[in-house]
């Protein structure tokens, strides 16, 4: 399946969590995958062996531009981290559509200024929808999130997601 025309910018969360699952390749389904250097540095702090070579369309942005004033105010209000600010700056600068993040505050800011945001769980399910992985594998990856990744979820919440996905017609 050909990659979509979407330009996506990575925050550290999905980068770390998909690497923990050994499935960074699920990020290869975008036209362009951009990551600020500061985000990559953060991910490498957590995952020194991060398999970034699996990311075929990855472009590392060394020096993102500064955030516009309105966005800077929102970023300040929600005390966004340097990596999250850089990811938002790259989205603006490069005309991206998606912020890929598991950080609630960063996603809130991105949504407020009109970007779509998606996280690790959405990316796993999208990969199934787009034929990259079978439903059984998507379910298995979701089941393994608590044991294999640092993405924290309430057990009952994850169970409800698993039930929703399992009940979907393939």
């Amino acid at each position: 399946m050909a990659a979509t025309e979407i330009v996506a910018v990575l925050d550290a969360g999905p980068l770390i969590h998909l690497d923990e699952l050994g499935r960074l390749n699920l990020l290869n389904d975008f036209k362009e995958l951009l990551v600020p250097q500061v985000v990559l540095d953060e991910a490498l702090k957590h995952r020194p062996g991060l398999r970034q070579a699996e990311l075929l369309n990855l472009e590392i942005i060394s020096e993102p531009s500064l955030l516009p004033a309105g966005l800077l105010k929102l970023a300040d209000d929600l005390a966004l981290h340097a990596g999250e600010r850089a990811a938002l700056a790259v989205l603006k600068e490069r005309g991206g559509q998606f912020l890929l993040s598991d950080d609630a505050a960063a996603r809130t800011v991105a949504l407020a200024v009109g970007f779509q945001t998606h996280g690790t769980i959405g990316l796993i399910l999208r990969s199934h929808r787009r034929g990259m992985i079978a439903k059984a594998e998507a379910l298995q990856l979701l089941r393994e999130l608590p044991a294999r990744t640092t993405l924290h979820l309430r057990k009952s919440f994850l169970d409800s997601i698993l039930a929703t996905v399992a009940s979907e017609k393939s």
Partner: protein
Amino acid sequence: MKTVTIQYPDQLDEQLRKLVAAGWFKTPEEGVVEALRRYLSGHSVELQEKQILEDVEWGLHGRD
């Protein structure tokens, strides 16, 4: 601003000071505040779960 006096394990202190030395934070206090902010942000349960449920819907039925 609040002032809190805490005790924490030497091992955590060692890790924190390595981050300060590496330039991630100007002071250990700044590192503690950042760690707290990250934890509270990541554990805003209602917001996080609302976003994930939207993501499940997009993952299963989105068009992009």
